[in-house]
C-alpha cells in the first residue's frame, strides 16, 4: 500500500552543489549532479543540438541555387558550421548520459524538439540573408548569455559557437547589403522575406518568463542566465537599427522605442502559434522530419557496416 518515494538527493551533497554554483563555480563532465539538474541541462543542450541539425535544412535548399561561386562556397561553409555545432553539442549532451545515436534517432522520429524558427520555409534567396542575420543574430543572444552557464562543457562549446556565429552574421550582412542596395526586385524580395520571418524570430525568445519555481531554479543553477524578455530586447536593440539603416520597414507597425522604459514596445505575437510549432506542428515540420528520416534509413546499412568494423577492431 505504501508507495516507494522517488529517490531524493542527499541533502548535504545537494547543499554543497548549490553552494558551489552560487559561488560562481562550474561543473565538469563526470561530476556528481542532482537528477533534476542533469535532466534540465540535458533537455536544454539536446534541444540546442537538435536545432543545429534541423537548422541546416532550410539553408541547404539554397546551396544548389546560390547565385555566385563565392556565395555558394560561403553558404556551404556556413551550413557546415551549423552541422559542426550539432556535433559539438551532441557530445556535450552525451556527457550527461545519453548516447548520441539515441538522441539522433529520437530527433528524426519526431519525438524531440528543436527551435521554432527551423519549422518555417526558406522561400527565396533573400530568406538566406534574413536567416543569417536575424535568426543567427537571435541565437547569438541566448548563446552569448549562456557562455556563463554552470555546465563547463556547454560553456566551452558555446564560446566556440559564438566565435563562428560572428562570421555568419558578417557574411549574412554582406548578402543583406547586396540585396538592400540592389535592384527594386531584390529589395522587394528582401522586405518580403523579413516580413515572413519577423514573427517566428520574435517568438524565438519564448514567452515572457512566468515567475515560477522552475524559472527560479534554472536561474539559480545558471542554466538560464538572462530572461526571455531581456534577450528579446537585446536582439531588438542590435538589429532594428540594421533594418532602418537600409531603409527597410520593420514588419511590426506596433514596434516603437519607449524612451522612459529604455526598451522596445511591440505587438504581442500569437503565442499559440509558438506552442503549435514547438510540438512539431509548424509549416515545414513534417516535411523536414520526413527528409531526415529518409536519409537516416537510407544510411542504416552504412552505420551497420562501420559498426561491424569497430566491433571487429575492439
Amino acid at each position, binding site marked *: 500500500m505504501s508507495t516507494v518515494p522517488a529517490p531524493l538527493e542527499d541533502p548535504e551533497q545537494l547543499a554543497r552543489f548549490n553552494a558551489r554554483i552560487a559561488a560562481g563555480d562550474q561543473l565538469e563532465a563526470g561530476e556528481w549532479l542532482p537528477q533534476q539538474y542533469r535532466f534540465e541541462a540535458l533537455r536544454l543542450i539536446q534541444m540546442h543540438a537538435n536545432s543545429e541539425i534541423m537548422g541546416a535544412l532550410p539553408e541547404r535548399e539554397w546551396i544548389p541555387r546560390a547565385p555566385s561561386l563565392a556565395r555558394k562556397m560561403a553558404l556551404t561553409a556556413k551550413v557546415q558550421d*551549423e552541422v*559542426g555545432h*550539432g556535433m559539438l553539442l551532441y557530445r556535450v549532451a552525451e556527457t550527461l548520459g545519453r548516447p548520441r545515436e539515441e538522441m539522433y534517432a529520437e530527433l528524426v522520429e519526431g519525438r524531440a524538439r528543436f527551435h521554432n524558427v527551423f519549422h518555417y520555409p526558406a522561400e527565396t534567396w533573400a530568406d538566406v540573408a534574413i536567416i543569417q542575420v536575424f535568426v543567427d543574430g537571435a541565437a547569438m543572444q541566448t548563446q552569448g548569455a549562456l557562455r556563463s552557464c554552470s555546465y563547463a562543457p556547454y560553456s566551452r562549446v558555446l564560446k566556440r559557437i559564438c566565435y563562428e556565429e560572428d562570421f555568419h552574421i558578417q557574411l549574412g550582412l554582406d548578402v543583406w547589403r547586396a*540585396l538592400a542596395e*540592389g535592384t527594386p526586385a531584390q529589395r522587394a524580395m528582401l522586405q518580403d522575406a523579413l516580413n515572413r520571418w519577423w514573427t517566428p524570430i520574435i517568438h524565438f525568445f519564448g514567452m515572457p518568463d512566468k515567475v515560477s519555481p522552475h524559472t527560479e531554479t534554472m536561474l539559480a543553477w545558471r542554466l538560464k542566465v538572462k530572461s526571455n524578455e531581456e534577450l528579446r530586447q537585446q536582439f531588438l536593440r542590435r538589429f532594428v537599427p540594421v533594418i532602418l539603416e537600409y531603409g527597410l520597414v520593420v514588419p511590426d507597425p506596433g514596434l516603437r522605442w519607449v524612451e522612459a522604459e529604455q526598451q522596445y514596445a511591440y505587438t504581442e505575437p500569437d503565442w499559440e502559434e509558438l506552442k503549435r510549432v514547438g510540438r512539431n506542428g509548424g509549416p515545414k515540420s513534417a516535411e523536414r522530419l520526413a527528409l531526415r528520416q529518409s536519409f537516416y534509413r537510407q544510411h542504416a546499412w*552504412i552505420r551497420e*557496416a562501420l559498426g561491424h*568494423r569497430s566491433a571487429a577492431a575492439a
Partner: protein
Amino acid sequence: MPAALATITDPAVRAAFREWLLRVADDELTIGHRHAEWTGVGPDIESDVAMSSITQEELGHARLFYEQIAGDEPGGPDLLAFGRPPAEFRNAVLLEQPNGGWEFSIVRLALYEAFEGHRLGLLARCGQEPVAAIASTLGREERYHGLFAATWLERMARPSGDARARVQAALDAAWPYALGFFETTEADQILINAGLVGKSAERQRETWEGMVRPLLEGCGLAIPAAAAALGGRRGLHTPGLAQMHAEMTEVWGSDPEARW
C-alpha cells in the same frame, strides 16, 4: 586576353589549352555542385562536415580555373560558371550524375581523385604560368580528398555481403562513365604536338587504372568490363547536367546583371 592564354601565340594551341582548362573547371564545378547536396544529410555528422570541406575546395578550384580562362573579361568566373548552356560544358558526365547513395558518391570521388591528382601533375608540367604553379599547389587539397574516398570505400566495401554488394553496384554504374574522363577531342593531339601535355589520353587512362585497380580490388570489388559512356568532353550530356544546371542558374538567371 587572360594571362594564362596570352603567352600562347598559335590560336589553335590557345583554343586547345582553353578547352583543357575548361574541362578542369567544369569537372570541379559539377562534382562540387553534387557534393554540396550532401551538406547536412551525410551518413554521420563528422563525415558530413568533412565532405562539405571537400565541396568548398572543389568549388574553389573551379573558380580558380574559370578565373584563368576569363582573365579580365567582364563577368569573370561567374559568367563562365552560370552563363553557358549545358551543351557548352566540358565536364565528364560521371560528375553530373545525381548523388545516388553515399556509396555512389564515394566510389565516384575515389575514381575522380585518382584522375584529378594525375591531371594536376600534367598541368604542373605544362610550362604555362600561372596555371602550372596553381596546379602544383592544389595537389595537397586533392590528397585529402583521395584519402577521404579511400578510407570510406574500404570501410563500406570490406565487410562482405550486403555492404559490398551495394558498393559493387555503385562501381558497376560509375565505371563506364569514369572512362569518359579520357575522352578526346581534336584539342588533345594539338596539346601533345605543342608539348603542353606529355602523355596521350590512352597512357593517362592506363596510369589511372594502375592507381584505382589496387584500391578497388583491395576492397574485394571487381572492375566491370564495360564500354566507355562518352560525350561530356564534346558537350553531349546526360539529363543530370540539365537538371543541375537549371537549379544552379535559377537565382543568378533571374537577373544576370544584378550583384548578389
